[in-house]
């Protein structure tokens, strides 16, 4: 969490002539860059040359990489993706809140609150142990099956609930590991000042714990963004479902490729950013 990273200044010797060691290291670097470039080109070249030689390539190209279908369906897919983003946007804060609550339940020590602790353990065990799609089916079809009146039979509500249930179990576990990672001496220092356990958790432990697990939680939320597509099984016409509609309409799989590209456009930068945060944190710890 140190904002001031002290980078060793590489320009210290810029004015003077390079040392023997610097010359040697520059040579090694140049050589390994050259090797990396050559091997990458060789692999790419092999793919470009060999794949079109496969017997089914022409039909695959027609079915999956059809420019005309791509152009016709892409705007519609993009529009459907807004729904994915919306579902994500209202699920994520709920997941953060429920995940925190469950993590705190699991961390209670008082015997009177033992039922809470038990609930926290059972909750994380159950929802981390079930496939997401199964929870979506059971909740998404089961609860509206009770014959609830509109709008309480909406698949949006129950699909969101399913996502929140599953993902908050994972977020709770990540947060708990963050809470455990805070050194005992921090709690000692807080206790020695006369702070209550509650205040120690709220002002000393949690702020540090949450900061420590931001990168790990980023990865969970990237997974959530993808799993929003599973809600298509219970009704909402989000991008995956929309791609299916186009597939039937054009008798062509290209819309799926379009949908994949749209997902990647969002998830790759997010993944890179999570990795960047993780690396930064590892450096700060060293």
């Amino acid at each position, binding site marked *: 969490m140190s904002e001031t990273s002290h980078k060793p200044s590489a320009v210290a010797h810029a004015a003077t002539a390079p040392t023997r060691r610097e010359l040697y290291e520059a040579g090694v670097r140049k050589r390994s860059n050259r090797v990396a470039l050559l091997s990458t080109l060789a692999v790419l070249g092999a793919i470009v040359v060999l794949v079109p030689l496969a017997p089914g390539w022409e039909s695959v190209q027609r079915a999956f990489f059809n420019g005309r279908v791509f152009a016709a369906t892409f705007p519609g897919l993009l529009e459907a993706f807004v729904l994915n983003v919306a579902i994500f946007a209202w699920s994520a804060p709920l997941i953060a809140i429920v995940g925190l609550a469950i993590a705190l339940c699991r961390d209670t020590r008082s015997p009177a609150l033992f039922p809470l602790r038990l609930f926290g353990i059972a909750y994380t065990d159950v929802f981390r142990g079930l496939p997401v799609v199964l929870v979506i089916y059971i909740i998404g079809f089961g609860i509206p099956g009770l014959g609830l009146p509109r709008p309480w039979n909406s698949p949006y509500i129950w699909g969101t609930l399913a996502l929140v249930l599953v993902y908050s179990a994972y977020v709770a576990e990540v947060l708990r590991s963050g809470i455990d990672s805070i050194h005992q001496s921090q709690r*000692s220092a807080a206790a020695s000042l006369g*702070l209550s356990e509650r205040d120690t958790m709220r002002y000393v432990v949690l702020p540090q714990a949450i900061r420590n697990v931001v990168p790990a939680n980023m990865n969970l939320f990237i997974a959530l963004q993808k799993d929003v597509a599973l809600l298509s099984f219970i009704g909402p016409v989000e991008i995956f479902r929309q791609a299916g509609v186009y597939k039937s309409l054009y008798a062509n799989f290209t819309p799926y490729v379009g949908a994949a590209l749209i997902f990647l456009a969002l998830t790759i930068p997010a993944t890179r950013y999570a990795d960047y945060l993780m690396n930064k944190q590892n450096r700060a710890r060293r």
Partner: protein
Amino acid sequence: MMAKLSLRGVRKRFGDVDVCNGIDLDVADGEMVCLIGASGSGKSTLLRCMNLLEPIDDGSIWLDGSDISEPGLDAQPVRQKIGIVFQSYNLFPHMTAAENVMLAPRRVHGHTRDALRPKITALFERFGLGDRMDHYPDQLSGGQQQRVAIIRALAMAPEIMLFDEITSALDPELVGEVLDVLRDLRQQGMTMVLATHEMGFARELADKVCFLDAGRILEQGPPAKLFTAPREARTKAFLSRVL
């Protein structure tokens, strides 16, 4: 005269090791007591027992004549009266120096930041940190961090201060600035108990020096006596190694 803080037969055991093995100690009001002894002789544990961070296994601890070591007693009010400063500072890294200091007075005494600011500014200035209040711990040197930790403990207006080898983690040139703070507190009449390796400092300022060995106070007395004419052979051996 009744002692401010009294320990009677205090025992603390970690697993098979008797870290404190029947300790008797009296600290009078305004007195400065130094605990000396080799690493592992029980100095730190004894301090942690005094403000109830470690529950004692046997014996009793008395503060102003009341037993604070009774099992099940609420430790919070006691800890508010007995401040402790640790070897490794233990500042809260996500808060500025000023926030570190204000947290407990805000949460425990219910003061507002605005009400506290002038008081803690005075404390920071008194200890030469007037321009460091809004820095984060990792932007401060070890000596500065340790002074912030002392201010943090003082801000709760404790009646007794415990110092657990607070200069041991510091570079030699930073030790002086922290010891100056202790001199200042000594002049103000603060009751203090220090675990320390700074023999020169103990000799200069302590009212009483206790030599701990294997969880017992082997010998205690005024520094002039203990440092120049130790009674016990082990005390002599220890002092000849560190002086």
